């Protein structure tokens, strides 16, 4: 199966999906339980991060997906660490002798995928690499279903999956929490340091003379509050900034009155 390139379009798609990702309320406790378990072993994942430069939570969510977070299994395919892997990829790790430590096995699995060669682990790149790690089958053959490997237990996934024998079922539902959903919860709990650039980005700036992307959405949102009535024109000028101050205690970024 040929690879899918990490393009700007794909990067934006991942960013948009993540920003709008909501955990299904009935799954919330289960997600939090998994996140608790991941955090209990954070130091082991950080060991791999220090060695390979791969974010610890990327390693953690793959570990959860591939072998249920068990530290007695190979990250490659869930085989026991007491021997080299038997399933494909068979005979891993190539170096060393069994029994393997989980860290040695995980390092081998991640190096095999060349994940140590990635320079910038932005949020979108993390999600791209997770989907690539699992495989592009959903995107290629069932593009109407977002892969449950990332989005199961969220508003982005309802049903449709490949079942055990490799056949497709429209009605089957994944019973495994998606990797992106786990990262979303880790982020919400302040544990996943995602792209600094996106964290510091100011979404809405004072702009009285030129229409800015999604400023009209902001004005519509403001209009839902009692007593607020803005013209929805996408110009984030003085009146829009006034409402921002009324609601949040400060003007829009760039409003000259901010310095007064």
């Amino acid at each position, binding site marked *: 199966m040929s690879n899918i390139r990490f393009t700007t379009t794909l990067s934006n798609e991942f960013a948009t999906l993540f920003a709008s990702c909501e955990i299904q309320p009935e799954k919330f406790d289960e997600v939090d339980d998994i996140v608790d378990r991941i955090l209990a072993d954070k130091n082991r994942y950080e060991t791999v991060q220090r060695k390979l430069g791969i974010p610890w939570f990327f390693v953690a969510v793959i570990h959860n997906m*591939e072998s249920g977070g068990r530290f007695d299994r190979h990250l490659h395919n869930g085989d026991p660490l007491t021997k080299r892997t*038997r399933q*494909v990829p*068979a005979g891993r790790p190539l170096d060393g002798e069994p029994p393997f430590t989980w860290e040695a096995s995980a390092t081998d699995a991640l190096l095999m995928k060349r994940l140590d060669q990635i320079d910038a682990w932005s949020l979108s790149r993390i999600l791209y690499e997770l989907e690539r790690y*699992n495989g592009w089958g959903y995107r290629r053959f069932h593009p109407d279903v977002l892969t449950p490997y990332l989005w199961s237990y969220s508003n982005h996934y309802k049903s449709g*999956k*490949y*079942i*055990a024998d490799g*056949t497709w079922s429209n009605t089957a539902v994944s019973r495994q929490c998606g990797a992106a959903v786990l990262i979303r919860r880790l982020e919400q709990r302040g544990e996943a340091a995602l792209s600094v650039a996106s964290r510091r980005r100011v979404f809405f700036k004072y702009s009285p003379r030129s229409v800015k992307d999604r400023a009209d959405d902001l004005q519509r949102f403001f209009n839902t509050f009692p007593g607020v009535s803005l013209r929805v024109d996408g110009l984030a000028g003085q009146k829009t900034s006034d409402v921002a101050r009324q609601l949040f205690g400060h003007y829009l970024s760039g409003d000259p009155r901010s310095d007064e």
Partner: protein
Amino acid sequence: MSSNWQRLLLAAALCANAVACGDSDRANPASRDSTANISVSKEGSELWVQGDSLDRQLIADDGQDYEAAISSDGTRIVVDVVLFSNLQVTRLMEWNEYAGTFEFARNLSQEAWRQAASELGIDIEVALNPRTRFVAWSADGNEVVLELSASTPDGRDILETRSLVLGPR
């Protein structure tokens, strides 16, 4: 119960036979092929087969990784395919004499999982990280042993061996 024992004994016998044959089928498939002298090779995310009287033929390109095992008469190939990192299946390819190519014949994973699901009372739609892998051929190439592994959402591990009858060629 008795059928389970019979199946286990058969699987053990087939495995023992595979070991007794020396090198495994995977290690050097061509060495055990007395007719077509065929071999398989992985190239990136594709699996190819070729032989003395067979043009190079693509037999799988929908997976991430593969392993293949050729029957002793060179007319059948069992292919383990990693469809997703957490889903591995096993297929049977058979030589079509008229077409002069190997063709997909059976989804062995489907047969093996159906057997297991029925006997163990599991739902294969919710099995986590399901994988099947080739274990051994029978000496006559008419049966194949597969191993199935998965876990259930409630944390139960599944590790089963199944022998599937392919029938004579």
